[in-house]
């Protein structure tokens, strides 16, 4: 399905996750963040968003544990930046598919 974000039509799934990570940019990130209740994206937010995008592009399965061990943020800081479900929320804002939790 298509979703209008910042005046552009973006292909997303039924939960609002991007189908093509290449459609993403920082302006769109700010738009999605607002929908998710994060008013301002700081540098710390963007460092993490870029980290997640890089990992996803490399085909690494994303987990909260993996983020905590990355050296980018601790798990606690991750929760502070993206309150609630940090990995799901951050992935949506980063314009990448929803992390496959597990089995």
């Amino acid at each position, binding site marked *: 399905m298509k979703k209008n974000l910042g005046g552009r039509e973006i292909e997303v799934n039924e939960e609002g996750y991007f189908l093509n990570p290449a459609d993403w940019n920082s302006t769109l990130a700010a738009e999605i963040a607002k929908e998710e209740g994060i008013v301002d994206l700081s540098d710390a937010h963007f460092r993490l968003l870029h980290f997640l995008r890089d990992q996803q592009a490399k085909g690494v399965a994303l987990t*909260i544990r993996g983020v905590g061990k990355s050296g980018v943020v601790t*798990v606690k800081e*991750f*929760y502070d930046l993206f309150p609630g479900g*940090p990995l*799901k929320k951050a992935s949506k804002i980063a314009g990448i598919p929803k992390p496959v939790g*597990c*089995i």
Partner: protein
Amino acid sequence: MKRLLILGAGTAGTIMANHLRRRLPKSDWQLTIVDRSDKHLYQPGLLFLPFGTYSESQIIRSTRDFIPSGVEFLHEEVESIVPSQNHVLLKSGKKLVYDVAVLATGSRIAPEETEGMLGDRWHKDIFDFYTLDGARALREKRKNWSGGRLVVHINEMPIKCPVAPLEFCFLADEFFFKRGMRDRVQLVYVTPLSGAFTKPKATKTLSYLLGQKNIEVVIDFNAERIDAEERKLVGYDGREIAYDLLVTTPTNMGDLALRRSGIGDDLDFVATHKHTLQSLQHPNLFVLGDATNLPSSKAGSVAHFQAETLTENIQRFIAGKPLLEEFDGHSNCFIESGFGKALLIDFNYEIEPHAGRFPFWFGPMKLLAESRLNHWGKLFFRWVYWNRLLPARWIPGITRQKSVKPRAHES
């Protein structure tokens, strides 16, 4: 003489030993299997042990009874695997050189990963039921427990047998009802997932059952630590969950020998090809069962299906032929729902658990629905495990790839 080495004599390793001894000529191939334990534990039975449904003698046998003749069993601990030199070092100092190695080292609970879990209260009011010690301790605890808030908790995914904590809730509901004390027990199920199970359709059915049985569900909960003094789980998001009795499923990790060998990921699981089961790093190393990093369930049925593909692929590897990209993530498991009923689910990497019949499209058992026959199936399965599954004998109606596909109205 060439050597094929199997590390781990649990479900996966034992099935592989039985398959391979029949397929590889004794004149060319020496088969060796190594395990630190010489007792084989029927792991699905651990769920029933705390409730007194099974006794220990029903779920423990001698490992040697299931290792075929012509396979050498070493009751030893592995120190490390050195794939670059094609050898394995044992704790005893012995060195085993191999031509082909199979890693079937399983997964273990790692309570040390969560602050406050291991301590004075471990196996006093914080329990696991994934180990014999844990299940035993819980059995003793429930004998004198007068009721309160029983919290069943999953710390982190993936876990072995992902439905077991749910089954524990259902069985506890029945157990306390029959003891006439269900009104004094508050049952709470706490999960890091966004629903009762990992797959959306099964989650719908299971959520309905949880509601019906008056089991409270807390989702998206990631424990930062356990406050064992105050008896509460503390989440990264600041939520706190109080308990009187905590039955936790600690973080699951691969065997420490893999960490010592530097071949595990951040959970000590091994990078494995999704469809061939070959290690992604070393061509003569193969992995199956709980030790893989695959997005398939960590369950005995999965090990059983993988073993058939892997047996074929090891023969192909030896013959220098291309490997079959065959394993499809097939998993099949019973979910005990209490009061003599169970559900049965069948799924793979692509197809979620669905409604229907099993085996084939008409079989007597119902998929993704409660029935008494499914419960008898689960109990009968213990016989199947010892007599058909471990010796790698044919089981009617069970295929390694998922064969029952959902029809339009069932998906």
